[in-house]
């Protein structure tokens, strides 16, 4: 019998994998992808609970998360493009201008 | 003899919100100055002057219509405008005998500061800041709502910060930053204190209010909590006053500030702290105030002697005057926490008098700097020959600052020491030595600056100009008038002081006002009479 808990566990796994990915990978694009993974994990939670609690609100939230994710990717990738154009093959570690 | 100052009408019949105007007029003036284009140089000054003169006139009107027999709050709207209902924050303004003269002093000094000194550059923002400052100061003196009090208390920092930082001399950024950080540090704790008493009051009565009167009458906090909260308030005010040892921002700020800034800083802004001691120290926390009174009396005395000693060896004339402020304000602190009717009255009188005499001194020093471009005492000398009127004015103001009887400075100082003596003879006797030191540092400075032979530029220094005399003249008149006939002022202050003392008496168990013994003279002296031993009176 499928329960929301399954969704939550799956979400937790994906979220953790995504988090580790953000921390470990150096390519900004891949880091972005890992962030997408985490967002999807959250979406899974929302969907699972919307189903489990029989509330459409969870789905609405997912909808908004997707919109925001899309916006984020658009801007984020634009930033990556701007950076990459100035320095080829830069990794996230190379960009530490904001160091204190 | 004083009937000419009797209130013309009762304050209850007021329809015109005069106190609100005292804040709104300068505020609007500031906005107007900010809106006028930069190019119209003379307009800024004119608008600022108009706004401050109107404010001054209104404050004089408040003075004239003030009911001198009433010790309570006057001009208070019966139905204060509620601003944030759920938090009980109200636009609630009033004056009593304690704040009345500070309001009038503010209204009096600002026009003079605007007439007396022209900024060296960017007049537009200068005048805007100055009269914005006036609005803030007025707000502090009149707010009965702790929230608005705190807002105004913080608001005044910003204009002064910019006045010092932009139009100051030499090390101005350092001085401005120091000034700002010191006062912010103090008031941050006070904000916590304010919230604490509001919550205490709320948990006891279920009413959220920032009304000082309600809070003070309620006294809904425990003894220990009250003492701690009192300390948070005292710290904020001590920085502002300033009380030793948190005074070090003052010499820097005064020295580096532009002349008008120094005048206002010394004349009005320091009084924010001493006024706070009255309204939010003694009135709000009577128990804690009486408990801490000895410590604060000693700190006041230390301030008197310490400020005097430090002033003696200053090489910079303006810095010397600044340190003399530390000493004078020490007297006020001493008088405030001696908590006798005489000393409290004296403290209020001294607040006004210090504003007049030190304000005038800063004017004179500022004008001297304009002429000679130095404040170093060593580079001045023999100015009396070149500028006799200047020297005469300086002498008079200096003597007032020294506390010569017959001039205003003496009355406050005397009442403070008298009251303090009744409360604690030893502290008062030590504090009284301050009058010796005051003579030492001021006369010595005067001798080095004005006496002797003039050399170089000193020999050709310009005497006072007519507009400068115009600024000084009202101050001089008040200095003499309040010294010879202080009654009109004292009789308006005293009822409020009596109310305050009664309030303290009612709210503190086992405390009564220290009073003098009263002996009655016998009809005639009989030589053979047994000596009647009066109990040890000290």
């Amino acid at each position, binding site marked *: 019998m499928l329960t929301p808990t399954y969704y939550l566990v799956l979400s937790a796994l994906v979220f953790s994998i995504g988090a580790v990915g953000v921390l470990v990978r150096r390519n900004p694009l891949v880091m972005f992808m890992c962030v997408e993974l985490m967002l999807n994990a959250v979406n899974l939670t929302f969907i699972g609970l919307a189903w489990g609690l029989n509330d459409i609100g969870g789905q609405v939230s997912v909808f908004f998360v997707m919109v925001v994710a899309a916006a984020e990717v658009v801007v984020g990738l634009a930033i990556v493009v701007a950076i990459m154009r100035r320095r080829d093959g830069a990794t996230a*570690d190379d960009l530490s201008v904001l160091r204190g | 003899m004083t009937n000419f100052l009797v209130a013309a009408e009762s304050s209850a019949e007021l329809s015109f919100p005069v106190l609100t105007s005292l804040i709104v007029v300068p505020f609007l003036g500031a906005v107007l100055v900010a809106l006028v284009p930069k190019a119209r140089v003379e307009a800024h000054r004119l608008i600022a002057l108009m706004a401050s003169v109107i404010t001054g006139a209104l404050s004089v009107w408040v003075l004239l219509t003030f009911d001198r027999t009433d010790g309570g709050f006057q001009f208070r709207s019966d139905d204060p405008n509620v601003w944030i209902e759920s938090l009980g924050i109200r636009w609630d303004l009033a004056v009593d005998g304690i704040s009345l003269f500070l309001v009038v002093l503010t209204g009096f000094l600002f026009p003079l500061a605007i007439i007396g000194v022209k900024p060296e550059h960017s007049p537009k923002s200068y005048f805007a800041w100055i009269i914005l400052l006036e609005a803030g100061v007025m707000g502090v003196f009149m707010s009965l709502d702790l929230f608005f009090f705190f807002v105004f208390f913080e608001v005044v920092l910003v204009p002064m910060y910019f006045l010092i930082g932009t139009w100051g001399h030499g090390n101005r950024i350092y001085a401005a930053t120091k000034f700002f950080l010191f006062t912010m540090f103090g008031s941050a704790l006070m904000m916590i204190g304010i919230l604490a008493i509001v919550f205490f009051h709320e948990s006891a009565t279920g009413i959220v209010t920032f009304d000082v009167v309600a809070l003070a009458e309620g006294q809904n906090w425990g003894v220990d909590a009250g003492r701690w909260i009192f300390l948070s308030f005292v710290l904020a005010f001590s920085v502002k006053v300033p009380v030793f040892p948190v005074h070090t921002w003052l010499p820097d700020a005064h020295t580096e500030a532009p002349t008008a800034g120094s005048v206002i800083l010394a004349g009005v802004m320091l009084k924010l702290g001493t006024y706070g001691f009255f309204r939010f120290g003694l009135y709000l926390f009577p128990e804690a105030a009486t408990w801490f009174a000895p410590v604060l009396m000693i700190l006041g005395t230390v301030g008197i002697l310490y400020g005097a000693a430090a002033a003696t060896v200053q090489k910079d004339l303006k810095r010397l005057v600044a340190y003399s402020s530390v000493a004078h304000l020490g007297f006020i602190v001493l008088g405030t926490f001696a908590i006798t009717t005489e000393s409290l009255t004296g403290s209020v009188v001294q607040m006004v008098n210090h504003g007049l005499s030190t304000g005038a001194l800063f004017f004179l020093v500022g004008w001297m700097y304009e002429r000679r471009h130095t404040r170093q005492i060593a580079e001045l000398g023999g100015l009396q020959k070149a500028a006799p009127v200047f020297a005469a004015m300086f002498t008079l103001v200096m003597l007032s600052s020294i506390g010569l009887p017959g001039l205003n400075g003496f009355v406050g100082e005397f009442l403070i020491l008298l009251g303090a003596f009744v409360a604690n003879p030893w502290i008062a006797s030590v504090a009284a030595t301050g009058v010796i030191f005051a003579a030492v540092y001021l006369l010595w400075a005067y001798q080095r600056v004005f006496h002797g032979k003039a050399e170089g530029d000193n020999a050709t220094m310009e005497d006072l100009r007519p507009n400068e005399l115009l600024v000084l003249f009202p101050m001089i008149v008040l200095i003499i008038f309040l010294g010879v006939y202080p009654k009109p002022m004292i009789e308006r202050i005293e009822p409020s002081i009596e109310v305050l003392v009664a309030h303290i008496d009612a709210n503190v168990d086992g405390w009564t006002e220290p009073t003098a013994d009263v002996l009655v003279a016998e009809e005639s002296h009989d030589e053979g009479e047994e000596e009647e031993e009066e109990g040890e009176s000290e």
Partner: protein
Amino acid sequence: MVDFVYLVPLFPLLGFISLMLVGRRLGEPAAGYLATAACGGAFASTVVTFFGIRGLEEEERQVTKTLFNWVIAGDFGVDVAFLVDPLSVAMMLFVTGIGTLIHLYSVGYMHGDPNFSKFFIYLNMFVFSMLILVLGDNLLLTFLGWEGVGACSYFLVSFWFTEEKNAMAGKKAFVTNRVGDWGFMVATFLAFATIGSIDYLTINGTAAQLSTPVLAALILLLFVGVMGKSAQFPLYLWLPDAMAGPTPVSALIHAATMVTSGVYLLTRVNGLIYEALLHAQWVTNIIAWVGVGTAFFAATIAIAQTDIKKVLAYSTVSQLGYMVLAVGSGVFVAAIFHMITHAFFKALLFLGSGSVIHGMDDDQDMRRYGGLRKLMPITSATFIIGWLAIAGVPPFAGFWSKDEILLSAWDLGGLNGKLLWFFGLITALMTAFYMSRQVFMTFYGDYRFGDPDADEVDEAWAAYLAHAQDAKLEAGTAADDAIEAHTKAVAALETAREAYVDAQIELSQAADEEATVAAQKVVDAKSTAVDKAEAAEEKAQAARDEAGAVAKAASQADADARSEASRRVEPAPGEQLTAGAASEFVPAAVKQRAEHHPHESNWQMTTPLVVLAVLSIFGGLLNLPFTSDLHFLEHWLEPSIVFEHKFAASGLTKWILAIVSIVAGGIGIMGAVMIYLKHNADPKKIEKPILLDAWGYDRAVSAFMGGPGAKMFEGIAWLDANIVDGMVNGTGSFVRGSGSAVRRLQSGLVRSYALGITLGSVALLAWFLVRVAA
């Protein structure tokens, strides 16, 4: 008629205000006359008031006239009110009377001063303040006048402010007085705290109810104020320096009126002091001993002073000590009596000295005076009257009052009283001595203003010796040169002779005629050269001898000068000190003085002298001791003074004491005659340098204030800048330091931040979990 008292301070006040407004326009001398008129008006009003008071019954002779409430707060209340009673009227009479005279005198004295009108502004203001001081019915109003006169004294002492010395003296006067004012203020507080009132009638009326410690504290604190104002040890320091002011100021403020206000104050609170006499005599003993100590101490210093005004200044300190002694003995009448007579003769002396200074081109050094009797007849005649008065010669004013004080000290009884009397007597002796010294040095002897004084003679001798030595050295050098030249000439002669001999040998060996002729020519030439060289040598020798002689003479002259200088003996006493051989070398200033012709002063200055001289002669009539009916002053003051003093000493004792004091005065005068008139002894034996230096006390105090005292203030300023402010700035640098430490965490690496976020959320999650589980 008592209401005329309002006019008394009003006149000088109006004078002050009108001079302030139009004084500069009035100019000289109108401004001076206006001021004099103002003071005279005050005097006239005082006289009217005097008769008004006299018209009252004796019991009603204490009238309080209230003007308005001054300072009222809480239980404290004080009015601007005048207490008109015999004491204040007596004081006012001589303040305004002498004040008027001195105003008139000043018109002459300040002639030509650029700040002529300003001087009279201050003078009128002073009179006003002094009258407030006298009239005040409470301690605070008296304090107003007290400080007012102090401020005027400050202005007037530093009147010629361009001189650093004058400015310094003015400041010193004010500050030293402030030390005393501290005592006055605290006494006022104590009076209020223990009595509840600070007006004199209440204080005197309730004195009996005060506990002894309070009483003692009250009196002694007031006495601290008195020490300042009335220049008692240890606060007398300012008075001698205050002589830097114009001389009329010294006469009015620093001799006749202001400095006596301390004594006046003590008399005002005589109820307190009387109580102390009864129950705490140690308190009055302190007062008496400070008084007599000051009198004695100042008299020793006055003996050695060379500045004419300094002598009078120390004399004033000494006389004030007498008055304080009288107060300490409880005989207030004697104190007031002496105050009045002293005001007469000391004002006279000061004005006289001012006249002398004026006539002597502002030179104040008595050693340069002498023989002025003939040049300044009025000044010297009046001055001599003043001298006789102060020296205690009967029947002049000073004798009667001083005698009464000595008697009152004796009358205290016991060893204490006798010791007080003894020191008072010695002081009287010294007073007679130093005043006689002053008179003899100034008015008797030869006129020697144009002669060099001792220092100048030394200077002249030094210049003379230096000159002789220069001459000797110069001649020596010249002689050496001549010797050298001669040596050279001798050498040249030798060479010439050798050449001649060689030429002759050449001639003798000549082979042929031609050679012989040539050689002969050479021989001839050499012979001429030898002749020339011989002549030159002779000339050089003559020059050498001559230079040698000159050098010898110069050397001799120098040696003579030295031996002369070493043999230079001090002139026998009375003999005119001259520069002798060095007279050519006296400084230019001496010559300048020699060209100066001393002159008698103008009428504005001499009139007050004459009036005061008359008063100094007859002042004693105020309170003659012979019968009770003659105690005019005592009877007059009775309503103001709590009790009547009855001398315990018998009539015989009084006579003996009077004779003893006359004898003491006589000894003093005779001593001065021997030394300064007859020159039987060397004055240097008496005028010790340490006395001239005022026992080094002033210098020690100055050194302390300039040394450790200033160091302490510097230390506090240092403390403020470094420790107190240092803590503040330390807090700032701590924040900055910790900030830059934490800054390292801000690596700029996105992944590091992400790790931080991760670990943070782990912690948050853990916290949630714990919260939920709990």
